[in-house]
């Protein structure tokens, strides 16, 4: 509030341009990578404290955590399975944020996607070739999630209702609605799940590589990678993606430039919902072959964490999904030593640390980069 910045004359921008490129690019990489690294460091310290409170050795717990996840084929398979779902919800949240929209409804969209896939799998004739059925179910999953995502999208675009609240409220509505349909009409007696699909199961990884025996990993993970590539292509290589990012950065400027802001917003949330819905394929077609109440629990909120740590970059999301999946699976591995709930605390600490570090790091890096640019300008 001192107002000194206004008194200092701004440096002439033209002369600084040639020199400014390298520091800005280096700054951008630092800006993207530093917060997650700082966050992991903080999480490790908090983890140490929790482990010590429980009277265990941190080194031993972390060794068991790694051995139980990346130390054997089953562990790797489980991490890949969990990372697949998180990649979808992470991509969903990241795409929304690129458009300046916060989709906290990924959990409901994921559940809706899985539910539609399961229902289509129940309706197709048993003789349908597996590939065809899987394809139809997958499209259904995207459609189910997309419809749930489109509702807050239209409410935002048409009525200006803020998507943070509508998506979170819609989570409860969708889960209650699906709960009612399953419990009143579709469940197998004495259970909370639907009957098994007749066709459309996705090949397990263990069917191809027997070492993965017992793990739930399946070929949906290729779909997740394709989705990451597709989101990257859409955001950075298409006109629609350019418009989407423009709306996310500066909606007024985008509107002035002729972008249909309302249209971009509802399409972005529908697309975001479709991505989250696709995650349902992993559980329904790849793992259990039915829809079960509660299968999506937590995956939506963790999707926010994954998008945040992955810095809303599609490949960053994939890496972050692997990190959070490792923690989730690692919790089960260390449960004999410390309560597995420790990893839930660590996941939350990572989110908090990244969320607080991002604005601080951005500020520090920008200040440093501005300093470099200014010295560069002086030299030339």
């Amino acid at each position: 509030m001192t107002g000194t910045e206004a008194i200092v004359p701004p440096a002439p921008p033209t002369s600084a341009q040639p020199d400014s490129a390298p520091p800005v690019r280096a700054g951008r990489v630092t800006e993207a990578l530093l917060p997650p690294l700082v966050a992991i460091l903080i999480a490790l310290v908090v983890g140490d404290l929790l482990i010590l409170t429980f009277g265990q050795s941190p080194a031993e717990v972390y060794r068991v955590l790694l051995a139980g996840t990346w130390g054997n084929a089953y562990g790797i398979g489980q991490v890949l399975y969990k990372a697949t779902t998180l990649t979808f919800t992470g991509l969903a949240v990241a795409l929304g944020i690129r458009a300046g929209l916060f989709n906290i409804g990924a959990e409901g969209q994921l559940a809706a996607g899985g539910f539609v896939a399961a229902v289509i799998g129940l309706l197709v004739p048993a003789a349908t070739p597996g590939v065809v059925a899987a394809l139809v179910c997958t499209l259904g999953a995207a459609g189910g999630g997309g419809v749930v995502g489109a509702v807050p999208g239209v409410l935002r675009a048409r009525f200006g209702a803020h998507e943070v609240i509508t998506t979170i409220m819609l989570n409860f509505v969708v889960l209650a609605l699906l709960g009612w349909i399953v419990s009143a009409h579709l469940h197998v007696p004495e259970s909370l799940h639907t009957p098994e699909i007749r066709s459309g199961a996705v090949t397990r990884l263990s069917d191809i590589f027997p070492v993965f025996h017992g793990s739930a990993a399946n070929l949906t993970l290729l779909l997740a990678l394709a989705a990451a590539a597709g989101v990257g292509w859409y955001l950075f290589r298409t006109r629609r993606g350019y418009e989407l990012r423009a709306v996310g950065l500066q909606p007024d400027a985008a509107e002035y430039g002729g972008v249909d802001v309302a249209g971009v917003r509802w399409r972005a949330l529908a697309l975001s919902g479709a991505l989250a819905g696709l995650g349902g394929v992993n559980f329904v077609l790849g793992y259990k072959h039915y829809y079960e109440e509660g299968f999506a629990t937590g995956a939506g909120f963790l999707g926010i964490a994954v998008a945040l740590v992955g810095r809303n970059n599609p490949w960053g999301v994939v890496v972050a999904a692997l990190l959070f999946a490792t923690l989730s699976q690692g919790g089960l591995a260390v449960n004999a030593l410390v309560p597995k709930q420790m990893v839930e605390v660590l996941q939350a600490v990572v989110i908090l640390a990244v969320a607080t570090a991002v604005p601080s790091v951005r500020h520090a890096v920008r200040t440093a980069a501005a300093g470099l640019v200014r010295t560069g300008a002086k030299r030339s």
Partner: protein
Amino acid sequence: MIVLAFLAQTLRIAIPYLFAAAGGVMSERAGLIALTLEGYMLGGAFGAAVGSYYSGSPVVGVLCGMIAGGLLALLYATAAQKFRANQVVTGVAINLLVIGLTRFFLRLLFDSSSNSPRVPGFTLAETGSGFVALAVNPLVWLGVLALVLVGWLLARTAFGLRVRAVGEHPEAAATVGVRVARTRYYAVTLSGVLAALGGVYLALDQHQFTDQMTAGRGFIALAATIFGRWAPRRVAIACLLFAAAETLQIQLQGTRALPSQFVEMIPYVLTIVALAGVVGRAVPPAALGREEPA
């Protein structure tokens, strides 16, 4: 008699909502999104169970619960205000943090993954119903007064005026000398303490802490805050309305007249409808959730 039982049951269900929604109004009127109500409540419930268990006195439990909620709120305010962290992300993270921490310490202190041992509460009976059981519980009185207190603070005190100013237009407030950050810290900490009391009530009423015992009540309170358009009186009515719907569903359970899932949906659907502005548009405080306040 049936009417009285219905009213008593409604009040009993409404108390946690009234506490948490009072916190929601306080936080959102100061410009910080109250996604954290669920976390404050759960933290408050756990604090109450631990305090009451180790001291044998529910009063100590109440204090511990309030401290837990206040600390969580302070964490939220620090991240959102000092470090300019995104409020939605921080809110989600704090809710996850509380779930994880309460589970971890449930294992550490009570060696259980589901619940604490029985702890002393204000009422003798396990599930005291009827007005007598309610009237002897001081938390019920406090809960009824929570939104009245918040309404009085906001409308009649200088502090309340500052809270509203920083929630609507922080730059203007700063210009006339209001300390924006400090006002927000006070308001959010108070919101954490209030919401935590909702959790305290649950834990002491049920004489134990159970894993995730708040079960989404913080989000119902958030729905009530928005559906009541951030005005304490309307928010209180919303809380009672949601509680009455739940009571009705419980009373009708035997008759299978209405699937419980449809009653569960009521608060959320009403809130979405209110936000979309079909009947009387809900307009939030102007600076709510803005990432770079003054």
